């Protein structure tokens, strides 16, 4: 296999990974706080000193 042929799958994989990470960051903007809200609520119950988040569940 030539070096160009070897490099092609790597470039493809890197492209998909980069797109995944960008998409995760984009998705996280809307969902990260919602996804972690309950865990934070549990953490607050265990550690009452944690700050209360406004608008939490």
């Amino acid at each position: 296999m030539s070096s160009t042929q070897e490099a092609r799958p790597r470039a493809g994989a890197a492209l998909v990974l980069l797109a995944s990470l960008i998409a995760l960051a984009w998705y996280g903007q809307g969902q990260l706080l919602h996804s972690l809200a309950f865990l934070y609520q549990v953490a607050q119950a265990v550690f009452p000193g944690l700050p209360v988040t406004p608008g939490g569940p």
Partner: protein
Amino acid sequence: MSALELALRLGAWLVCSVFVLAMAYLFHRQLPMGRPALSAISLMVLGIFLTTLLLFLAGLLGLLRADRLAAIGFSGLVLMAAIPAWRRSLLQIPRDFRALSHDLRRFWGSLPRWLRIFSAAAVLASLLRFAFLIWALPPFVWDSLTYHLTNVAHWTQVGKIELFDTPILRIYTPANYEVLATWFTVFLHHDAVVEAAGIPAYLLATTAVYASARSLGCSRPASWMGAMAYASTPALLLATTGTKNDPHVAAYYLTSLALLLDLAGKRRAVDPRQSLSSMFLLAVTLLLAAGTKAYIAHLLPGLAAIAMLPPGFRRTLPHWRERITAARQGWHSLDAWTRRCLMLLLSGAVLLGGYWNVRNWALTGNPFYPYGVNIAGARIFNEGERTARLNFARLVDNLESLADKFGDAAGPIEPDLPETTGWGWFFYGPGLAAVIFVCFTHRGLRSLAWGFLLSLLVLMLSIRPSPFNMRYLLWFPAMASLAYSCWLDDLPSRPRVLPIVALIAFGGALALNLATTLNYNRVSLDRFGLMLERPLWERQAALLKLNMPSEYEHAILFAPAGEPLGYNVGSDGFVYPLYKADFSQRLTYVPVSGSDDCGSIAARMRERGTRYLFVAESHTPGEVIQRVRDCAQDGGSLAEESRGLYVIDAGS
């Protein structure tokens, strides 16, 4: 419930389960699939189907009682042991169990060590999550409290599958899921574990994704990772223990996909018995789905496309002709007894697939009651409170709604999916990127993507635009999981940073998917506390106070247990919570309108055999509530017992 009664009820459940599993095993032996994943699918489909069929027949005959079902199960086991051919088959169970254990060990051994550790942790976390949510919370999802579980509660209470007088016309819709859910209530005569009714579908859907990935040529580890990714989809996880029937439809869709990919695959040698088995199971699966929810019909064009595209468009007809000829040969190779048994099984599937619509047709003149049907402006069936329309205006509205929800940015993912798709971190992150890439590099996946898209478009063409219609798309994220499986196998191992970043993204996405479903994004810690401080048998849907007014709690606490409770709610009102968790509360619907006078309301209550009338804010029409309140304030025969609960002849 005393310990002895509980033990007897669990014993009855066990006997009946052994009977159904033994039946499923006997049929499973007659339907060789040739691949372990498809064999697992066959056993699961047969298990779900036979459980549903047994309860359905018992329900029609009025035998839905733990003792009667145990008697049926025990007699069935004795009969099986008495028939030599069946006894010989059942004696093969230890040998087949050893083979299964060997297959599982081989599968587990094929996974890299890090994936085994990750998988063990994921399975354990998932098990704990399911077990805790089922144990801790009563049912609370809207559609369940309105109609799915209302059917289950009534059937469990009276021991019979029947229609009953209620304003909730959606109890008429196909109800195979509700029959299966009754399996989780009838033995304990309690709803403590009814949320587990979605678990068989969840396991079937996940296994089907694995089998489909294998049919697409993916390795075992990549297929397993794809299946785990799909299993972590938030919308699926929430609906599974949300006592909804959509996970079942998704499971049947994906099972059909797995069977079609196997049949359509060019690489598989044509084996007559295996072709017969796949086609037979496909028919059973689709019939089971038809009796679960009608929208499976809208997904069929996509499945048909998936069946036609993989062999190549020109090769499609000869390929399927070859398969059908092989299946016919397989049929003729069976002995007469086996053929009769399989015909009986297929008749059961036809019964489960068609009963509900035929019953509705006979009773109302419309098989799809309470939905009228309107195709391209022409009314096909009039009758009904809602209408299923097939036209392009709906497609545009539904696609706009999908576009608004795409990305899940508008709010938390909740069981009814009012603002989101619920497809989660994996779908929008690694999954979607893999779909786009693999569609260019993998022909099989491209065909699959067209099929999924066609199913989605036909569905969007016909479903009523509503904020809650994303629940019909639980099967869709499977495409991203399958694409990811295909992509993983092509992922270069060097430089090491590529697989490391890929696996961190995969693990992180799955962990976040799980995190977002821990409390349905609805139930706060104090609500969990409220339930956990009560014994398991006293956790009531009405006491969760999550999505219903306090009138329901009052009805549970103050309506006398020995008397029927009259109720008046609208066509989308909650009825299920009034039955109580142990189905001890008898109910009767009291039709009341805002123009009725107090005397005729009281007369109607007496006519329906009740002294009590329940009404609730946002569930009962406002004018009815006002009328009943006025009657109570007038000091006539109607008195307010507690909020939302009215009584006549209070002194008697």
